[in-house]
């Protein structure tokens, strides 16, 4: 079914009927007919339409994380489109949060920050307090930049997947992550939207929320279902920070606020409260609605009843939690519900896109969905005991935390900004890279490092100048070639050890023995944006001089993925030498004129194998 719908949408797009395709997509999203594995495809569809100027973007969202965010953001775009909001996505490279924020010039409407625990839990000597302080210092830098851009912030919390080797009872992992999460939340800038990942993952169950395979494959820890849940919270955040949360809850009466039909069973015959378990469930739902109204949500009734019948239980039945005075509008008539809801909207002078409709009758829900697509319609479960959960899981009334204490803090924050204290945290990219205390180590490729080298050669896409997928045999042949230069690059910083992240394979030029041809130069994406490539060039140049080379020859073959390095050779001072067979470009760098690159990576102390 769902695959058919996506194909139908694509067919319409091919025929130039993109608007129809998009409204079809929105309809199936609203009906909940697209399962989680298809949501990213829907998000991609929306992104393509925005890119092709067939859909005007309404909200620009920049998603940055210490985990891969590519799926998450696409699912977010799908959920936004379900409510008719075209989200234009912008993303950074994996684990490049600060760097991306510093180079962003066009302020996004909303910035989403997703932490992950690899740095918090990295091996090393730091105490728990130091670890948490390091994390907070990092996020404060990021927030200062978000504030400076004038963007709104959605901050996701920390969570664990398992308790670690110490286990549940005596391990350090769970308390550390919990404390880091609480410290993060307490330090949030005012007006930020907080996504309580621990609560969310706990609600759905970590065993199904996470998929251990995903983290190992793509540095993306969530299961397909977990992604959909997390994206739903991100969307609630985007909505809260842009148009604001939903404002009106429209409720049916019979079998929604009480059990039974008031027109037949009478105002005191309907089931609510008392000893009856069904009545207790309806009472709990009424109390939930009442609590929402106390938080500022406008309640309204929309029921197919005679007006007098509909009102009577609120007056005469002593077990009701809700009173007539709790409702801002009361529609009991025999008109179609879409007509009645439109009347409520004009009474309240509120837009239909701020309405949530809750009705136990699937026929009424379908009628409202079809006639008023702006209205959010809750998929009401059959058992009234599940009503509260269904409404809560819709996340309609989630808002950025902004209590009186926050207001107080907001004033302090503004005052601080004026005293330029915030600017002290808003650092330059150079300061940030210096603060990482990066140390690099270049060694020749040996038997120990060979498997990781072959793995990187086989899978690296982005920072890969030639994308030559050499087999193990081919790599070994290069290693044993006379005067070849082969480098395995390892990187660590104050947060931990990244292991082997870069590979260079250079061989003597076929006809010019004093030229070293760089057959392969690649780097893991986690090292991009840190001047590691500059450091690598220093290492190559050093080794090449030792072996009597006078010049380096760089090759660049463009692919769909390696745009990040298309200007690398030019930036590093190589001169262009024209085209290569197979669509590549050739560059040269004279080692005489090369005086060293600017890098924030220090040479690590010599290791035994270097």
């Amino acid at each position, binding site marked *: 079914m769902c695959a058919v719908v996506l194909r139908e949408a694509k067919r319409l797009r091919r025929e130039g009927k993109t608007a129809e395709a998009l409204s079809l997509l929105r309809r199936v999203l609203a009906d909940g007919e697209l399962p989680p594995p298809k949501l990213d495809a829907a998000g991609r569809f929306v992104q393509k339409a925005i890119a092709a100027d067939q859909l005007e973007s309404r909200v620009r969202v920049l998603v940055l994380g210490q985990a891969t965010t590519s799926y998450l953001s696409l699912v977010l775009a799908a959920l936004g489109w379900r409510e008719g909001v075209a989200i234009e996505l912008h993303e950074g490279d994996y684990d490049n949060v600060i760097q991306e924020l510093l180079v962003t010039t066009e302020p996004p409407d909303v910035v989403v920050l997703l932490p992950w625990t690899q740095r918090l839990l990295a091996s090393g000597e730091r105490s728990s307090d130091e670890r948490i302080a390091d994390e907070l210092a990092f996020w404060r830098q990021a927030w200062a930049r978000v504030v400076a851009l004038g963007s709104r912030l959605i901050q996701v919390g920390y969570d664990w997947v398992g308790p670690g080797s110490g286990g549940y009872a005596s391990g350090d992992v769970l308390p550390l992550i919990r404390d880091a999460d609480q410290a993060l939340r307490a330090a949030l800038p005012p007006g930020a939207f907080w996504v309580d990942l621990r609560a969310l993952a706990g609600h759905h169950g970590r065993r199904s929320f996470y998929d251990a395979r*995903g983290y190992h494959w793509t540095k993306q820890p969530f299961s397909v279902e977990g992604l959909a849940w997390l994206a739903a919270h991100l969307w609630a955040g985007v909505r809260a920070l842009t148009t604001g949360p939903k404002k009106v809850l429209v409720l049916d009466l019979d079998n929604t606020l009480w059990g039974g039909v008031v027109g037949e069973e009478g105002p005191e015959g309907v089931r609510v409260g008392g000893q009856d378990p069904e009545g207790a469930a309806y009472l709990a739902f009424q109390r939930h609605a009442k609590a929402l109204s106390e938080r500022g949500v406008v309640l309204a009734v929309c029921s197919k009843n005679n007006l007098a019948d509909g009102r009577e239980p609120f007056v005469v039945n002593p077990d009701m939690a809700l009173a007539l005075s709790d409702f801002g509008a009361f529609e009991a008539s025999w008109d179609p519900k879409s007509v009645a809801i439109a009347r409520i909207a004009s009474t309240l002078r509120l837009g239909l896109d701020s309405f949530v409709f809750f009705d136990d009758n699937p026929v009424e829900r379908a009628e409202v969905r079809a006639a008023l697509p702006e209205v959010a319609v809750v998929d009401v479960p059959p058992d009234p005991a599940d009503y509260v959960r269904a409404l809560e899981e819709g996340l309609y009334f989630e808002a950025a935390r902004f209590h009186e204490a926050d207001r107080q803090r907001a004033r302090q924050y503004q005052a601080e900004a004026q005293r330029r204290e915030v600017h002290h945290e808003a650092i330059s990219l150079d300061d940030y890279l210096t603060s990482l205390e990066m140390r690099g180590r270049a060694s020749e490729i040996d038997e120990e490092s060979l498997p990781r080298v072959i793995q990187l050669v086989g899978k690296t896409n982005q920072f890969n100048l030639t994308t030559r997928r050499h087999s193990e045999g081919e790599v070994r042949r290069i290693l044993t070639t006379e005067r070849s230069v082969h480098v395995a690059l390892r990187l660590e910083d104050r947060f931990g050890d990244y292991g082997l992240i870069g590979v260079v394979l250079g061989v003597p030029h076929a006809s010019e023995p004093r030229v070293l041809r760089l057959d392969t130069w690649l780097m893991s994406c986690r090292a991009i944006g840190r001047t590691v490539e500059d450091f690598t060039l220093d290492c190559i140049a050093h080794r090449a001089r030792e072996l009597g080379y006078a010049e380096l020859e760089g090759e660049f073959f463009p692919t769909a993925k390696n745009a990040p390095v298309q200007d690398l050779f030019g930036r590093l001072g190589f001169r262009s030498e024209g085209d290569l067979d197979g669509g590549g470009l050739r560059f040269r760098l004279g080692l005489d004129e090369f005086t060293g690159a600017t890098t924030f990576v220090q040479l690590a102390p010599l290791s035994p194998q270097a």
Partner: protein
Amino acid sequence: MSTLARLQEVFRDVFDEDDLTITTETTADDVDDWDSLLHVTLVVNVEAAFGVKFTSLEVAGLKNVGQLMTLVEEKQT
């Protein structure tokens, strides 16, 4: 429908190409956009379409569509 034909449907959806044709010899290099991210999307969609689940080793070891097809068929029996 044969396993290959059903796989082709999944591929067409995932890679957003309606006339994509795959054979048992097709590899990631033959399909535009088949990067490590869409690879996972592909795996998840194959899992959903056939009601199977792959291990990390199986996914890492896949060389071409033929191997994926064999794996799906083994898992289904």
